[in-house]
């Protein structure tokens, strides 16, 4: 009976020690919060980068359209000049 009691106490102590050792090897709550904040910042930056890329692409398209408009305006001006000459 005494032997059983000793074995039981030893086992409980062993298990307790193992559990304590296992629990104390991770980062602290403060460190985990730091990581979460960093992740949120990265996600926010990624969103901002995506929005900026879309804005850039839109502006590039607008510039292509405006360049075509300018070319057309210059062409129209040349044609108008020629027609005015032939009117005189």
């Amino acid at each position: 009976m005494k032997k059983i009691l000793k074995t039981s106490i030893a086992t409980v102590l062993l298990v307790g020690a193992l559990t304590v050792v296992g629990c104390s090897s991770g980062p602290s709550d403060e460190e985990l919060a730091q990581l979460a904040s960093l992740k949120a910042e990265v996600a926010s930056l990624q969103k901002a980068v995506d929005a900026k890329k879309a804005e850039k692409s839109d502006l590039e398209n607008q510039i292509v359209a405006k360049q075509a408009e300018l070319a057309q305006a210059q062409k129209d001006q040349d044609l108008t000049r020629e027609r005015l000459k032939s009117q005189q």
Partner: protein
Amino acid sequence: MNLKKLVVSALVVVLMGAAAVQTVSAQEKMTKEEWQNQITQYTAQRDSLKNVLAQLTKDVDSLKAALAALTDQVTKVQNETMAMTGASADRHKAFDAALKHLEDWAGQLSLLSNQDLYARRSEVDSLQAQLDSLKQSKLAALQEFYDRIQALQQKIDQLKATLARPDLLAGLEKTYTVGTWARDRDCLWNISKKKDIYDNPFMWPKIWQGNRDQIKDPDVIHPGQKLKIPVAGPLTDNEKKAERRYWRNKHAAH
């Protein structure tokens, strides 16, 4: 004996429970090393994204400036072109409205049946005259008007081509053989008044002008003369002029 079994069973349960707790914590909680790795990885990602964002912001600002410059250039060229015509904004607007009026008018004439078009054929000439007048303006040289003027001229040409078709005239014009005064009371006034002619005596100049080759004096027509009866419709400018000339001469003779 029973107590021994009970204690052993309890120990097994405690050991298994402890093992399970260890496994779960190992899965849920990261190690310090893993945390450090993730901190390093996300820090590098954040720094890289900050750089990308800064570059993109710079690019966007540069593109905005380029777009603004291009917009200014387009406006400048358009203003220069307008200045070449010497026209004010008001004249430009008035020209646009006048052209639109002619376009609508031509559109209406295009929808008419051949018979109705023939009756309003003088309008085609008026339309052409007004378009010719617009063509004289420097504004007609502007591309925005030039294309519209060309399209309108094509439409007028089509109307003229329709009116010039001999089969159209043959199908539309009737003839009338003049009877005697004693029996039929035929004169241009009375012929024009007939139900199956114009049902309107005031249309007599139309018959006169349509038969200039055989009627020199509208007061004199002869029995047996075969007169062409132009298609009904308002008197044309020429017909009205001829009528006025007739009345002037008539008054002068008295």
